[in-house]
């Protein structure tokens, strides 16, 4: 009755989690042109990545992991009774499809679930799963807990600029925020696997206020939080102080997600 978890590199993990024997991380990759391909959160430090992002003549493209990479991960976990795969939202990437194809290539049952989130959101969901496993829960309990967590999970984040969201073209309904005659720095949310405009705001303070308005009741209700940011340490520190909760972890968001939201973004995942 042992369970292992496989996830992709867009899931933010607190220190030490990745080193656990029952956790495997399959990386996504991104390329600045055909000649320069990097493994997410491995080949480049965040500082190096964002410097490249701002200065490179081309916008990076991101690639889902090959099915083979998932097959390798599943095979390496042969000692475990059950494998649960937690991927980032299918609306952002084909990673889920890779994981599902890979599951068909191995001679053992593998359960693939779409977290409908990413980074600190999928990180919180993964921690819930590990908690049940550590408490000795069986696979069904783990799955039930994860399903419930996926339903509850919500990310709120402030963007520093709409430029990257526009370039990446992956912002769904938030698309309408583009082309506003005045500079808009909205608060966006990730809900049901999609990026949606939460509030149209202008200016840093209004963004912070909009996040606080939503997050404070969650804190009061005792819900779990995790923070994340991209080169926005100061704003994030301010947000944490205002909420008065340290959170389960603070993530530095990696290049795959970061190339879409751009530097200056920060936010909170609520479970």
């Amino acid at each position, binding site marked *: 009755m042992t369970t292992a978890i496989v996830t992709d590199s867009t899931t933010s993990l607190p220190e030490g989690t990745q080193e656990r024997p029952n956790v495997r991380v399959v990386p996504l990759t991104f390329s600045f042109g055909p000649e320069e391909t990097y493994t997410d959160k491995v080949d480049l430090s965040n500082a190096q990545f964002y410097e490249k992002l701002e200065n490179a003549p081309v916008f990076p493209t991101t690639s889902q992991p090959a099915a083979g990479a998932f097959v390798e991960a599943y095979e390496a976990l042969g000692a475990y009774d059950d494998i649960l795969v937690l991927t980032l939202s299918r609306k952002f990437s084909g990673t889920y499809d890779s994981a599902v194809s890979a599951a068909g290539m191995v001679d053992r049952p593998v359960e693939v679930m779409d977290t409908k989130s990413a980074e600190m959101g999928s990180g919180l969901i993964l921690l819930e799963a590990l908690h049940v496993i550590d408490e000795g829960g069986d696979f069904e309990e783990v799955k039930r807990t994860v399903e419930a967590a996926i339903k509850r999970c919500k990310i709120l984040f402030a963007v520093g600029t709409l430029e990257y969201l526009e370039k990446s073209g992956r912002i769904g*309904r938030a698309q*309408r925020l583009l*082309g*506003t*005659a*005045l*500079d*808009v720095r909205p608060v966006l949310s990730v809900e049901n696997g999609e990026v949606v*405009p939460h*509030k*149209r705001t*202008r*200016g*840093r*303070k*209004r963004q912070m206020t909009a996040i606080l308005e939503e997050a404070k009741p969650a804190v009061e209700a005792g819900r779990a939080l995790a923070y994340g940011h991209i080169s926005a340490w100061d704003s994030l520190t301010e947000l944490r102080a205002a909420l008065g909760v340290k959170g389960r972890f603070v993530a530095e968001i990696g290049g795959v997600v970061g190339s879409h939201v751009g530097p200056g973004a920060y936010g909170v995942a609520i479970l």
Partner: protein
Amino acid sequence: MEGTAEKREGAVASVDLKTVIASAHATLAAHASKIDALNVYPVPDGDTGTNMLLTLRSILEKVSATPGLEREEGARIVSRAALMGARGNSGVILSQILRGACDVLGKVRALDAEAIAAALAGAKERAYAAVSEPVEGTMLSVVKDAADAARSCVERGEMDPLEVLRAVSREAHASVKRTPELLDVLREAGVVDAGGLGVAVILDGLLAALSGEEPAPVDLEEEKPEADGKRLQEAMAHLAEEPWGYCTEFFVDGFSGDETEFEAHIHEIGKSVLVIPDDGLVKVHLHTQDPGEALTYAGGFGRLSGVKVDDMEAQTRARAEDGGLSVSSGTTRNLLGVVVASRGTGNRKLFESMGALVVEGGQGANPSTEELVQAVEATGSKDVILLPNNKNVIPAAERVGELVGTRTHVIPTTSIACGLAVMVGFDADEGEVEEVVGEMREISRGLRCAEVTRAVRDAQVDGRQVLEGAYVGLLDGELLAVEDGIEDVALELVGKIIEEGADVVTLLRGAELEEAATEEIAEAIRLLDADLLVEVRDGGQPLYPLQMVAE
């Protein structure tokens, strides 16, 4: 004026409604620019006379179009036309005064002394009810004093309606003179209330029509401001213009001849006619297919100057091609639409890009209720948000709801820049109507609106000496800075805004300000506070070289 009414024992008989309104209009026209100049702040927003005149003019047009009216029907038409044609704060209050009077006059059996007293009482009641916080020392006090004078006259046993009206007219002027005693800002500025004077002058016009006497000359000796016809000229150029023929404007200098005959002839050959006599100078505005004919005719009355002829049909074609006046495609079928009043091409484009329908008008040229009504209907939306973008347009916007089948939501924005900032919260497709409106209201409450304009005359305001031509900075309508240079004023305003913790400032460049100068101001503002986000947009609004909004 022709059409003198006969006087019968105790009642005025066979009064031609058109004659009465025309007389009131003519009397007000003669004083409109003087009334415009009675402005508390020395900033170019004194369009009280113009607004009242344009409101009366729309009534005159409606009444002229339906001859042979019975009194009851006439009262109804005047009431409705006043409501639709109301422009600006003063125009809206005037329309309520007229409605109140018409409600009574439509029902009375004869136009006797009692009817006049009752009509004025009705007018007073409506006027006070139209204002949420009535302030004394304004046109409200004048209409109240006039109504009281009529009542006591009747109670003293006066049976002659003309005698009652004479007493009313005398008391109205006395009341105007007392307005500075009731309202501090008037006393400090050394002026009487402009709207009040408008009411008194209109009463003179009514009396003149009913008695056949010339209206008494208005004594404005004590009032310092010089008449300045600029506002009126500008309003003339911004009338709700029918795209027909050539818009023709000119002045007749050293006018000699029969003014009444002259005006009647211009009305005959043109549409959208304005004939405004002003100290031997007559200003003329008309739309005609043959401008040459009008000019030749007018040339017989004096020397022509300031001749301006525009092909209206070509303008309309160009605007339509430009996508200008048409409803932006995004707005047409949405449940929620936005109508804004705005001035300047840049601002129009900014608003349209965010999905609003723009009614040209605002500072110096207030749109009428009717223009707003038409725009609201043009959106085709069930719910329409109105952004007046000027404190003088708010009253007209608030009347729109009574006249359309659409639900209207007025967010009382006081400047174009504020309106733009509020538009950021608009999304026709996202969320419930109440939610969107609520969000826009919330944004509106968090804004500081700053404006820079130039003083139109010397004045003493809040203990400050303001010289004509100086740059004046207003923060949310309050005078904050007076300097010789525009940059100094802008920096003082922004300094105050930063103190209060704003972190975004948007600058809207007006028609009078150079691009390079605007950039310099923006740079200087950035130096004040490195964390402040400063953005510059081309607004093109007249009268305000710079408008700013901060959040």
